[in-house]
């Protein structure tokens, strides 16, 4: 069963359409973190890689305001503000996250467009 071609599903190339189309199981198999937020910033997608990095089960995160309860360090002009300012967004940036309170360098990719959710991809 190959609903979506697995090619192009790497961190830098996966598209907004692909993220919206693939199953939860396939999202869980991706080697990078995927967080999908609704327009109210409530978490709707939280894949296994991200869950393992942050040390939080998906059930504890889904439905929460991402920028308030999980990632206050992204609630700034580099991430949260960009989602607000740019309706079409596909940007990669180096960043520092606090997985389990350890300062950790990571790359982020921010994606927003016609799809119902906006996505933050996290590569350690």
């Amino acid at each position, binding site marked *: 069963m190959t609903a979506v071609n697995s090619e192009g599903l790497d961190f830098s190339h996966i598209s907004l359409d692909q993220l919206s189309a693939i199953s939860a199981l396939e999202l869980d198999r991706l080697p990078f973190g995927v967080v999908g937020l609704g327009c109210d910033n409530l978490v709707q997608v939280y894949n296994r890689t991200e869950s393992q990095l942050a040390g939080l089960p998906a059930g504890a995160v889904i439905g929460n305001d991402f920028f*308030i309860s999980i990632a206050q*360090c*992204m609630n700034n002009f580099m991430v949260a503000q960009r989602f607000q300012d740019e309706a079409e967004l596909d940007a990669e940036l180096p960043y520092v996250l*606090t997985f389990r309170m350890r300062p950790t360098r990571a790359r982020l990719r921010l994606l927003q467009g016609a799809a119902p959710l906006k996505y933050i991809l996290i590569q350690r």
Partner: protein
Amino acid sequence: MDPGQEAETTELLQFLYACPVGLMEFSRDGDIALINPLAMQLLMPLSPEGFAVNFYSLMESFAPELRNMVDNFSPNQGTICDNQHILVRPGSKQTGTEARVLSCTIVRLAANRFIASLADVSKQVAQAKRLSQAETWLASLLDGINDFATLSVDEHGIIIGADGSMFRQSGFAASETIGLELESFTAHSEGFETISVVDQIAIAKQQGWYLSEGWQRKKGGEAYWSQRLISVRNDADPADLRPAAYTALIRDVTRHKSDTGKLLHMLRKDYLTGAWNRAHFFEAGEAECIRAERYGQPLAMIAIDIDHFKKVNDTYGHAVGDDVLMAFSQICTNLLRPNDMIARVGGEEFAILLPSTDAEGAANIAKRIRSALAAMRLHAGDHTITVTASFGCMQMHPQASSLAEMLAVADTLLYKAKHAGRNRVEADLTLEAA
């Protein structure tokens, strides 16, 4: 892990992720071991490379004394500082970044483990300052009205009316003040400087009044510490073409040393050396640049770096390094005029801003500081230490008219002095010939 433990760990992590106060743990060297998202949010903008790994290097420009306080704390456990206010200025590259006040508490947990909490208290500090100013002002009304000088100004800050009270306070007759800018009676850059008179008038227009503190000058050249209240007298009236007018009340408070003044002073000074801190230097220095440009006066900058300072620290310890910094600052203060501004802009880097001085004048002062420092002998145990410094001097010119640009030019000259063998003064005197 059993499910019960796992659920507890999840709760603990959620608690730390969502914590509305910044928390972190660091080692004696300042390396950050643990940090929650809010602390990261507060610290990340302070790092030029956007990566917060070492607490001391992040704070070096804003509160270099933190390292000293931690080093000098001898008990193995206990509170090192409690809600210490730190004035920080996020990196200049990012737009729209204003100075902020962080409140920092540091607790020692074990020999090499320190916990800090961080919170942004900028709003509370601004509000407290405004309230305490209002209180001081109201209290002063009870002391008698004779201390006040009353002036009328228009919305551009030009004096349009004065009476004998200004003469009694400052020696300037009413006729000598009318038509001049209110700002032109301000003395040093300390106080008043953060916001222009025109902006103060705009705030008074919105909120009814604006109160500030700073140095005013007397006719004889003497300066006095004053409080100045700008309030709306009448709004513009298009019916009879009457322009808006504002009242400026100036009160000489030199004798009643105000608490607000002392507090501001503490927030702006480097705790170790008594020099201005970097944040205040950039704020007040920028106002000095604008003033120099407006009045066509030269303005000079000296950038200074103590030679081989790391070696002094490594060989004799931080305490001796601190003595060097204090001695250097004292030498400069002795040789500088009251209006000159010396600031500690980095660990062992200083900058001096010299109003009404050209590059040659700055070079002469730098040479005097250089030889005084080289002649100084410091004692560290059985050793006698000599220290030297390198200097870069320049004066404001059209290609370097902001404080940051001036400092960059002075820094380039400083590195030239370093490369030419240190213990030297390099100056750009090209403007003299032009």
